């Protein structure tokens, strides 16, 4: 598999040798992966591994200092940040970025922005064409509301909703854009066990019923191994391992990144030993 042929294969998203440099820090260094159509692809890794940076590259908040990103045959490198949604890429944020002082319904309607086509003057006069477009927008939004069981919260203002519901509203807003690729940044963070289980069901439904490809960053390994088809483990901006959840979890480099090696434990022990003469037990 060479660099040049892979961008022509059937992958929905192809990343090649991505590199991001913030001053002297290499946040992402030589990361390559393919996200195939219809799969759930998960990025894992310890804090600071560069997972969210990869997300921000795909949604064009950052620009890569080297490497290329190709979405469905189109290079993302020169796409404007607001145009990414129009291509069919939607995302959620690690700490929820909803429109706080708007209702859930309005939030989802904003999600349909990329599909609105009416011009300024027709909106100013609210011509019949705008009205029928609004009805159609609403109908699409109601489909998402029904899919994620949000009927009860339709008219609630986001600022008053509990965290778990907001997380679902943000997922709903991303789905309202009718994406082909859905980027989920830590969908289970801040959720309790039940809510995480619900989230897992929904991610599976999104993949199986809606046929949307999912790329997610996640720390909860239970959720990861339940829903992911493939997992990419990163550490310090570099790829450690790529494969099924079980393969990646048992990969020695991944274990080393999360737990450290026995050498690390030994290196920690030495200075401690010089201060305290009491011999320490071997780390488990």
């Amino acid at each position, binding site marked *: 598999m060479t660099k040049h042929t892979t961008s022509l294969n059937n992958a929905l998203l192809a990343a090649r040798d991505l590199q991001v440099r913030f001053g002297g820090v290499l946040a992402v260094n030589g990361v390559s992966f393919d996200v195939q159509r219809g799969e759930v692809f998960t990025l894992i890794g310890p804090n600071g591994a560069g997972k969210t940076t990869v997300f921000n590259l795909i949604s064009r908040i950052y620009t890569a200092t080297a490497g290329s990103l190709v979405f469905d045959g189109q290079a993302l490198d020169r796409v404007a940040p607001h145009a990414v949604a129009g291509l069919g890429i939607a995302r959620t944020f690690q*700490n929820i970025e*909803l429109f706080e*002082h708007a209702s859930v319904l309005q939030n989802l309607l904003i999600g349909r922005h*990329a599909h609105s086509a009416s011009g300024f003057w027709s909106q100013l006069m609210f011509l019949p064409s705008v009205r029928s477009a609004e009805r159609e927008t609403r109908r699409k939004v109601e489909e998402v509301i029904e899919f994620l069981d949000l009927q009860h919260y339709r008219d609630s203002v986001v600022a008053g909703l509990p965290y778990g519901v907001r997380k679902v509203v943000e997922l709903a807003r991303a789905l309202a854009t009718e994406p082909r690729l859905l980027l989920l940044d830590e969908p289970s963070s801040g959720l309790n066990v039940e809510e995480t289980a619900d989230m897992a069901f929904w991610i599976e439904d999104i993949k199986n019923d809606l046929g949307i490809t999912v790329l997610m960053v996640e720390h909860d390994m239970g959720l990861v191994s339940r829903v992911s088809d493939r997992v990419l483990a990163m550490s310090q901006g570099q790829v450690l391992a790529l494969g099924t959840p079980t393969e990646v979890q048992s990969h020695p480099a991944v274990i080393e990144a999360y737990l450290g090696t026995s050498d690390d434990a030994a290196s920690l022990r030495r200075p401690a030993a010089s201060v305290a003469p009491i011999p320490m037990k071997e780390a488990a």
Partner: protein
Amino acid sequence: MRYLFKTDYGQDIDLAKHDGHRFWYGLLLTALLLAPWWLGDYGLAQLSFILIYAIAGLGLMLLAGFTGQISIGHAAFLGVGAYTQAVLAAQGWPLPASMAVAAALSAAVGVVVGLPALRIKGVYLGIATLAFGFIVEEVLARWESVTGGNAGMSVGSADVFGWKADTDMSFYFICLACTVLATLGVLNLLRSPIGRAFIAIRDSEISAQSMGIRLAHYKTLAFALSAALAGIAGALYAHKIRFLSPDQFGFVQSVDLLLLVVIGGLGSVHGAFLGAAFLIAMPQLIAAGKDLLPAAVGQAPGLQAMVYGLVLVAFVLLEPMGLYGRWLKLRTWFELFPFYRRGMFKRQRSFQKSERLK
């Protein structure tokens, strides 16, 4: 209490959500149409000013209340509109044409002012617009060949294709028509994708962008629209006040407009009207209250400014949602009587936001 049984998406799209709305707003419009016959000359003049300020307030509400972009130089747009109208009216242009030019020119200036808003936000944007306000005031004072400089410039009565609106009553109806059209336009935009894009930018720029909203485009549009409305208000103002001088469009006027939207209630169309009514009624109330105060306080210069300041501080501290928020609470109290709780409108603590990308 009213329970709405919704059977059609159209019910959420319509401006009047139920018969109650139709009745009360119909009643309000009737009262306004009949105002010349039940209000005296003085009352009618004040009402015209309220309508004019309400149009300018709608503009600033769209910008500050719905798009979240502050402007402390809004009187400049009012001035551009007023002087454009004065110059064109003197050359015999009919009102609709000259008003359209006044709005367009203000909008164009608004686009120029909006450019820094693409890069700076918050207090810094406030300072940039403040500086712009001073620049325009200075231009109006120095460009004597057009504006008459500090000596001022008198304005004739409005001319609508040969029909002279030279009485208080006829001019009042022009103000009313402009206000109704401006309000409908703003309400239409707010229920369309453009208005939702404004709200999205106000609440979270980063996710607005990821929903496909072009920040630069919509921020510029918000500035242009806001300035155009201020320009229309300025055009009416010129005919109403009959004499323009640069100091009418200075810093104090800008602060008055900001006061209007904050006291009316940021983020509500009602707020623009309540704020305008407040702004026009307040000097009268202060004048009436003056006699009741001891002479040392009542006759002191700057009393009005101090009262305005105190009222603003009181609103920001006690009623951040403004007069409209107060009205909502009152209405809810009556609707739910006797079950209203004190904490019902309490602001929820917003959860931690992810770091803003600037």
